[in-house]
């Protein structure tokens, strides 16, 4: 059939097209620019609760709670080069407490509250509130309970009101982590009179209500909270818990979930958002070249990326095999390929057997030595090698993928055939907890940067954070001794022994500490790396 193209049909066709023609982008550039005292933070994660102690709370929720709730104590911060800061694990100062006294036998901690402190609703902070908040940390089902046991605080009987603004904590033994535990994200101090109104028989600690509401007294109030979407905060001008009594710079803070990393990068680079800490390494490198934003790169001093073995199952129960792998890994190549060199190596130290100091994580004497690796494999009874699986999570793909390839290649040289298995996060976590992963990579971050605590958390006990399921009696006795050791010299010796034991037994191979890259508008100042690895809104300001 032939069609006649006449004037009418063309007009008809054109009008049809015009009716639905390409949609013109009428969007005006009328963008509400962020004001000077307003900060917009974008993150890929989501805040799922206002109560950080809730089982299942996300890391972003911990970060938010630091600005909303006060704790009794807080870690100080120390300056680094170029106007950057990092938390100071050695300094603990009062936050809601004015000062803290520890008795000579280190079993009694007396906390003096700020007499003029008030909650967000204007009512004064009382010793009863603090007692209730501390009791909440040791009772009920929350993440605070196991955290507080690491400071030997397990029962409400240990917390006593001894004066109008005084609280006393008694410990059964001189636990060296008790005071530090009071500064942890979980140790929130709650306006108990407000929270109690929402407590029920089944929920005596108002956990349900506090998930979506606050009874706080920290630097910021929550204006609106939409889980997984955004949170907006307003400064609490009555807050005086900084070291020098000054107020935070920003009046308003908006923390918004933007899942796509590229979108977050564009937002900061165009000046529509002020800060983001979870961008992709390649975006950051490109942004560094364009120089439109400020990039604060700070080594995460309480983190370590590692390769873990299942030390309870063959072949990794054989220390010779573990040593052989540690000697076969191409550390420098891995560091360059995975992190583009942006971090602090934990390998390649020059000392032998005894560490020069007791800091941890520190660089260990790990180096590539293929002939030695081959000899160790032969000695272990595996001259022909064996087969194993190396796993990592999808969320760590950018760093773990090149790592897996390099590990596969390097171990191939000593006869070990490695199959690579990339797992969804939930699957990986479950298998990790059930000890079903023979060989994998992961990253640990200890909140209390004390050598003893790292070994306690990551190298003992039958629990998920003992990454390599290591059961070494000598390590267990060292830790039990170090925990309650008052004599500093003896404690240091214990820590040295722990590090030596780690190097000798290689339950896992320490690789490096990644850097945190905070990308912010160029006028942003005061970025502080915090041990909980989130943005601390209180420390930031605009030039």
């Amino acid at each position: 059939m032939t069609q006649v193209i006449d004037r009418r049909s063309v007009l008809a066709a054109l009008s049809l097209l015009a009716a639905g023609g390409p949609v013109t982008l009428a969007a005006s550039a009328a963008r509400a620019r962020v004001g000077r005292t307003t900060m917009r933070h974008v993150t890929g994660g989501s805040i799922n609760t206002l109560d950080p102690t809730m089982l299942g709370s996300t890391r972003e929720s911990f970060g938010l709670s630091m600005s909303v709730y006060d704790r009794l104590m807080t870690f100080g911060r120390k300056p680094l080069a170029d106007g950057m800061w990092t938390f100071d694990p050695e300094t603990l100062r009062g936050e809601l407490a004015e000062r803290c006294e520890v008795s000579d036998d280190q079993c009694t901690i007396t906390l003096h509250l700020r007499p003029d402190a008030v909650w967000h609703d204007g009512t004064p902070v009382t010793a009863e509130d603090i007692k209730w908040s501390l009791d909440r940390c040791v009772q009920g089902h929350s993440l605070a309970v196991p955290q507080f046991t690491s400071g030997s605080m397990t029962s409400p009987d240990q917390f006593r009101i001894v004066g109008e603004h005084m609280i006393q904590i008694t410990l059964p033994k001189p636990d060296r982590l008790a005071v530090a535990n009071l500064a942890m994200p979980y140790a929130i101090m709650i306006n108990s009179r407000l929270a109690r109104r929402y407590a029920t028989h089944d929920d005596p600690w108002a956990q349900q209500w506090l998930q979506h509401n606050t009874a706080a007294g920290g630097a910021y109030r929550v204006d609106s909270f939409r889980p997984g979407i955004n949170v907006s905060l307003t400064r609490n001008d009555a807050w005086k818990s900084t070291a020098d009594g000054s107020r935070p710079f920003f009046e308003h803070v908006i923390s918004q979930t933007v899942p796509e990393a590229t979108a977050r990068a564009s937002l900061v680079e165009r000046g529509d958002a002020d800060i983001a800490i979870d961008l992709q390494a390649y975006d950051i490198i490109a942004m560094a070249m364009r120089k439109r934003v400020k990039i604060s790169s700070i080594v995460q001093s309480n983190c370590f990326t590692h390769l873990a073995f299942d030390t309870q199952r063959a072949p990794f129960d054989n220390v010779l095999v573990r040593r052989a792998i540690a000697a076969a890994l191409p550390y420098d190549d891995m560091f360059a390929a995975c992190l583009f060199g942006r971090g602090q190596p934990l390998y390649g130290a020059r000392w032998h057997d005894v560490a020069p100091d007791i800091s941890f994580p520190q660089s260990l004497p790990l180096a590539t030595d293929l002939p030695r690796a081959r000899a160790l494999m032969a000695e272990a009874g595996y001259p022909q090698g064996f087969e194993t699986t190396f796993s990592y999570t999808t969320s760590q793909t950018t760093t773990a993928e090149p790592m897996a390839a390099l590990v596969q290649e390097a171990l191939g040289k000593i006869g070990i055939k490695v199959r690579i298995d990339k797992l969804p996060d939930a699957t990986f976590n479950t298998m990790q907890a059930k000890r079903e992963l023979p060989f994998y990579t992961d990253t640990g971050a200890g909140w209390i940067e004390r050598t003893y605590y790292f070994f306690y958390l990551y190298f003992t006990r039958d629990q998920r954070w003992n990454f390599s399921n290591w059961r070494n009696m000598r390590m267990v006795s060292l830790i039990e001794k170090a925990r309650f050791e008052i004599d500093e010299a003896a404690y240091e010796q214990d820590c040295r022994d722990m590090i030596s034991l780690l190097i000798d037994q290689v339950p896992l191979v320490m690789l490096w500490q990644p850097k945190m890259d905070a990308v912010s508008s160029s006028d942003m100042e005061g970025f502080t790396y915090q041990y909980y690895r989130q943005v601390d809104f209180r420390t930031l300001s605009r030039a």
Partner: protein
Amino acid sequence: MISRAGATRIGLRIVAAVPALLGVILFAFIMMRVLPGDPAVYFASGPNAGQAEIDALRHKMGLDQSMPLQFLHYLEGLVRGDLGNSLVTGQTVTQDMRERLPASLELTLTALMFSLVISLPLGVLAAWWAGSMWDQWVRAFCSLCFCVPPFVSGILLVYLFYYMFGLAPDPTGRINIFTPLPHRVTGMLLIDFALAGDWAGWRQAAEQLILPATTMALFVIAPLTRMTRAAMLSVVNSDFIRTARAMGLPTWRIVIVYSLRNALMPVLTTIGIVFSTMMGANVLVEKIFSWPGVASYALDALVASDYAAVQGFILLMAFLFVMVNLVIDLLLSVLDPRVTVE
């Protein structure tokens, strides 16, 4: 239009969907538990959280009960309209869906509208002048749209219109964060702003919609155009059109009134399928534009093995699918009286 008998038939259709929905519920329930990944382990993962916390969480979620018992509890909740609690957001799944479904619907409907206003004229054009240069151009355009996946076109659009030229607002969800939200009636911002008479807000919400809706629309232009073209071709070659032309009726009347109406049946069916697919499959678009919709919610929940949330999403999608098909069938019976809703 709908007689009493018709209403009864519609009611029966909905009742007939119940077994299918039950099947979906059971399938989703079992699937989540068969897949490796334990939500309790995933969520009790703070430093220092050990087996005791994992067990406590498992108890709180009811995962320490036997599977049939868990299923009964789940069904019992469903009857009360309780889809369970999401661990990712810490809210009830019902509440999450109530907040997020309108966002997804608004985006999908806008995208569908965009794609229809482009693909219907293009399809008609291509069929009317089948084999011409126009037809070839339309075909090339469709191929191009279809072969660019949404995450590429989405990022490209953001890069061009937001990052390079600054024409579009930032890709962070449905509305500028500083704009007060209208009183919630439907949850769809365009409608709620219009009801509130806040036209500045309406304009903002519309601006936020343009890029994500275009991204989604581009991907479905091809099937809709091709389907329109094919349906139109068979109609314009039929006897009654030839008669109409012979009688000297104006071309626009032949095209729009006689051809298009008759060609719309298969197109409408395709629209139904496309719509349902878009609702579930627009996760990438939602992620790129930080759109707080149900698809990105379901993906996050799946990664975290958040049972209740994933089950709720699957159930919602199945329900929507049933409803969309019903609406499409009703529309078909309007278009062609020979078709009835059975």
